């Protein structure tokens, strides 16, 4: 069954643009064979009791998995300490952190079913002269991680491409 939907809107309507600052990006790299390391990672994640803002996994090659997530900048040291407790000096999973970083998040009606959302989001970032560190688009949610100081620069370009439900 296929449903044809028509959205007569320009710019694209959203439910709002949410921005977050003082965040850290954590990057872990491992191979699918590192199951034991993954178990230890879960112990560290459990003990850290961290909540993520966005989590993204990619597999650049069959032997290389890259997991990245964004968490509170003030709590990342604790996570890294727990990682060190679990892994010692082996440097397994090659943990790296980047921060502070900023995050924009927005969603809109049926975003997962509609073309043009990513094009508009990346066009706004490009026009603002910024670079996206990490992004995840799934279901109706869009997350873009940007270098610190980017979100305010982005806002005027953002409103060219997306409609916010209220002025803020």
């Amino acid at each position: 069954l296929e449903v044809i939907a028509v959205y007569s809107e320009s710019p694209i309507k959203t439910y709002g643009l949410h921005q977050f600052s003082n965040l850290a990006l954590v990057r872990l790299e491992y191979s699918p064979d590192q199951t034991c390391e993954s178990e230890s990672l879960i112990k560290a994640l459990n003990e850290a009791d961290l909540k993520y803002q966005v989590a993204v996994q990619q597999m650049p090659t069959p032997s290389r998995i890259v997991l990245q997530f964004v968490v509170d900048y003030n709590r990342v040291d604790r996570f890294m300490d727990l990682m060190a407790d679990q892994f010692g000096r082996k440097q397994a999973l090659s943990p790296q952190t980047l921060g502070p970083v900023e995050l924009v998040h927005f969603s809109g009606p049926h975003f997962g079913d509609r073309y043009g959302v990513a094009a508009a989001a990346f066009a706004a970032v490009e026009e603002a002269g910024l670079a996206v560190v990490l992004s995840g688009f799934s279901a109706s949610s869009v997350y873009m991680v940007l270098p610190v100081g980017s979100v305010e620069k982005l806002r005027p370009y953002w409103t060219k491409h997306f409609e916010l439900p209220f002025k803020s």
Partner: protein
Amino acid sequence: LTALAHGKLAGEATPVNTDRVRIKLGGLKISHRFAFIQIATASLTVGPERLFGLLAQQQINLAFLTTSGLASDGQLSFCVDTDDLTGTLAIVESEACGHRPYDLVADVSLLSLYPTKSRLTFVGCSLLAFTQNRIGVYAASSSISALTFVLDRSQIAGAIEALSSFFELPGRSSWLEESTRIKQIDTIKPE
């Protein structure tokens, strides 16, 4: 990714500890008929905004997208409807250099778990469940309350079975298996 063409990683599955306390999961959503494409940004002759703009002009929806890295180390991973695959590859090849500048898995499904409450434990447990069972996850991303995994379609049943060692899954009758595809048609040309 050619080695992952059937979504099964090499090696033996790791014995699963069934005594662990499982995390209660509210729901599962499964969507089929997607193709997965991955490109290193270094092989693109244009920026991602240009590539995504060209896809939008052809009314091609990116049902799932992740991008990472800056400049030369970047990676774009996305899913399109299998009906849009030919058009997508034509655009990718026109905007990238080299022979076959992308990795392609022609028949993937999206498996979403919810609610995750943004807990990293959900991410770790699900990835470990897949790793232990040698199920290749091409990509994953979070949304407001869900985690979505891109998996080989033939591995979906095995993936759900794998998750059951870490999660208390809802009854099968409450799984959402997408049978309706919403397609947007153009009334306004994208910029």
